[in-house]
């Protein structure tokens, strides 16, 4: 057992990671009077300097392709103008994937993590999502019910600000909503096509505020949400939770702190956190009364697996890794050709979506998916915008220019976001032979879709195709099922449960084995419903933080 120097500073709570989970923990705890140290593996965020919101492509000579042209070789999936939020590959910080497996891991190294850019889709789980095994015999039930979490969904929505409409649909529980923005032309058309097919096309639910809220300005509809929002009209943990928490005087942040392991004290509890200060490459330690892991599901699993079996008597850490099932079908809608030009910027992405609508009948695959309906609208062109037109129509000259004008704004797409059932073949573990440049052993991923997901993807393909056909679309083309990790909804690797033999955490995301250890990220998820995870991460982290503060007050941790 490692020695912890008494001279190392002592903190009430050390939070590791500053995304949705860490940001919520920091915000809730400091508001309750708790002193917090936040360790972030990346640098600080200065929105005014770091966000490229409102920039036009011609303001940089490389137009967004990167000075080294890396866009052309797949090195820039989310583009030069996106928030400085993360990467599929981080130099010096590799991960490995088992032979014949595929998994992509998107990580972030900056204050606020992936919340600086994410899609902000904010969906509550449905009541049945918490009891999947009771429903169809697959997976595991959560140790909590919808009603247990509902008050924190309320708090989360009321605080971060979510727009939407109340619909009374069981698969999409209503929340506390700000007004939803108007529908673009193609979105109204999709809504009418959906009505014909019995698909409820309702207002999107996203964490962008349409009314001024808590000192944040209302959305100004520039459509650049993914670049980071200077007015914080789109939620990010950095601007909405961490900056205000700093003002309480109870938060201290250490940047470039790459956590290596949690160090157990003689009493079996976490006594200290060991991290590498990236700026000096020196190991440092901080002592803690309690620790909150919020480094992201897989990074938190990695820290635990590198901590001598801490909190893992069940052996579940790293297991039950899931991502969201994704598939996209798009088509060209002739009725949109020649449409009068209008401003389609709005809120980035769709203003509508289809919640899972077949939950009350037997399908040939378990669980369900929702549809994120899109369309380019008359979006601001970027590098790559007309590659599809050129590939399809070929040619050159005046004819090609005409084609591009004609096709501009006519693409409509349906993207499925579906539930994956945890399986034995999908997990992460420590690679015994590889470390990162900080000397920390890295993760090795195993991942496989099962028949459940493949059948679901096929169902998506068919329902999306009929929706597009109803719109009169031509040139309908489908992607395949996404690669594991590609949707960036990886969860489940430190799951909660009522039985310590089959779960790492209790119903408050507190480690069964180690009472002063908590998890605030998606690691705690028991299943991965078709609802994007962030809102639930925030609600769970909020509930956990209140519980933690109360336990500290009572002297239980």
């Amino acid at each position, binding site marked *: 057992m490692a020695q912890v120097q008494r001279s190392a500073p002592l903190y009430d709570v050390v939070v590791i990671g500053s995304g949705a989970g860490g940001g919520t923990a920091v915000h809730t705890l400091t508001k309750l009077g708790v002193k917090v140290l936040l360790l972030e593996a990346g640098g600080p965020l200065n929105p005014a300097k770091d966000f*490229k919101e*409102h*920039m*036009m*492509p*011609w*303001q*940089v*000579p*490389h137009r967004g*392709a*990167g*000075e*080294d*042209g890396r866009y*052309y*070789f797949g090195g820039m999936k989310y583009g030069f103008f996106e928030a400085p939020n993360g990467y599929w590959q981080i130099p010096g910080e590799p991960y490995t994937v088992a032979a014949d497996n595929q998994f992509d891991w998107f990580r972030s190294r900056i204050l606020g993590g992936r919340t600086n850019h994410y899609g902000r889709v904010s969906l509550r789980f449905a009541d049945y999502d918490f009891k999947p095994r009771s429903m169809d015999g697959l997976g595991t039930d959560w140790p909590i019910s919808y009603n247990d979490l509902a008050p924190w969904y309320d708090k989360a929505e009321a605080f971060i600000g979510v727009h939407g409409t109340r619909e009374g649909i069981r698969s999409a529980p209503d929340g506390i909503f700000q007004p939803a923005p*108007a529908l*673009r*032309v193609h979105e109204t*058309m999709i809504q009418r096509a959906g009505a*014909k097919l019995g698909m409820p096309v309702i207002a999107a639910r996203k964490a962008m505020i*349409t009314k001024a809220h808590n000192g944040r*300005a*209302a*959305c*100004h*509809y*520039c459509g650049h949400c993914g670049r980071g929002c*200077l*007015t914080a009209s789109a939620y990010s943990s950095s601007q909405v939770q961490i900056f205000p928490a700093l003002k309480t005087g109870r938060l201290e942040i250490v940047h470039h702190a790459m956590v290596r392991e949690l160090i157990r004290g003689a009493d079996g509890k976490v006594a200290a956190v060991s991290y590498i200060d990236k700026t000096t490459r020196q190991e440092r330690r901080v002592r803690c009364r309690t620790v909150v892991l919020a480094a992201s599901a897989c990074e938190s699993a990695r820290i635990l697996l590198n901590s001598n079996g801490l909190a893992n008597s069940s052996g579940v850490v790293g297991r039950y890794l899931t991502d969201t099932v994704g598939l996209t079908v798009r088509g060209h*809608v*002739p*009725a*949109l050709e020649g*449409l*009068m*030009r*209008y*401003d*389609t*910027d709005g809120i980035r992405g769709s203003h509508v979506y289809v919640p899972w609508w077949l939950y009350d009948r037997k399908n040939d695959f378990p669980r369900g998916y929702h549809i994120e309906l899109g369309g380019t609208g*008359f979006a*601001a*062109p970027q590098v*790559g915008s*007309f*590659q599809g*037109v*050129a590939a399809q129509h*070929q*040619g*050159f*000259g*005046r004819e*090609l*220019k005409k084609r*591009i*004008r004609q096709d*501009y704004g006519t693409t409509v797409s349906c993207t499925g976001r579906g539930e994956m059932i945890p399986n034995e073949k999908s997990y992460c573990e420590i690679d015994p032979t590889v470390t990162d440049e900080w000397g920390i052993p890295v993760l090795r991923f195993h991942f496989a879709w099962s028949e459940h997901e493949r059948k679901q993807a096929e169902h998506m393909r068919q329902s999306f195709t009929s929706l597009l056909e109803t719109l009169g679309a031509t040139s309908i083309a489908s992607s395949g099922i996404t690669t594991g990790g590609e949707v960036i909804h990886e969860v489940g690797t430190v799951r909660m449960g009522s039985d310590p033999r089959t779960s790492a955490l209790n119903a408050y995301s507190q480690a069964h084995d180690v009472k002063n250890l908590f998890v605030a990220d998606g690691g705690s998820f028991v299943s991965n419903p078709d609802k994007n995870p962030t809102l639930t991460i925030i609600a769970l982290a909020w509930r956990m933080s209140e519980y933690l503060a109360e336990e500290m007050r009572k002297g239980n941790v």
Partner: protein
Amino acid sequence: MSKGVSRRAVLAPALAAPLVAQHEGHQPAAAAAPTGRPIFLTPHEFATLRKLCDLILPADETSPAASATGTPEYIDLLCRGNERIARIYHGGLAWLDAACRNLHGVAFAEAAEPAQVAMLEKLAYREKTPAEWKAGAEFFNWARRMTLDGYYTSPAGYRDVGYVGGKGMTTYEVPVEALEQALKKWKP
């Protein structure tokens, strides 16, 4: 990279004053005017590239030719920044010259426009490309793709397709006439 992040330029006065005030320090950065000179390719390569870009996207009644939008300069810049792109253009432009000399006895840039167009007809459509011109067609695909990228990320390209956003709004609104127009062409 340009430091002049232009928010004032793209946000309409309709926006709340604080947002504009927040960006007071920023000067609008206009698109750099085309220099007409290479920073990486040879003068001959660049002249050939300019001609090629203008054949791919020529001037018409709506908008100017590619060379007026900084597109050849954009490609030249990326050739400097990326060895793979540089190889594509060194090799591809030389291929064009060699093919043109075989057919017409002159380099591509010196050939008459109908001869240039006839060559591109064979490169621009998969079904018209002779087997021995496949390498040339591969290059043409790159040139077409990057010409579109350069062109439509310029102010002229934005005007050409009719992009009218980038101004911001206080409440998001969609003109009723737009919906009516689409619904005239489609009924569920």
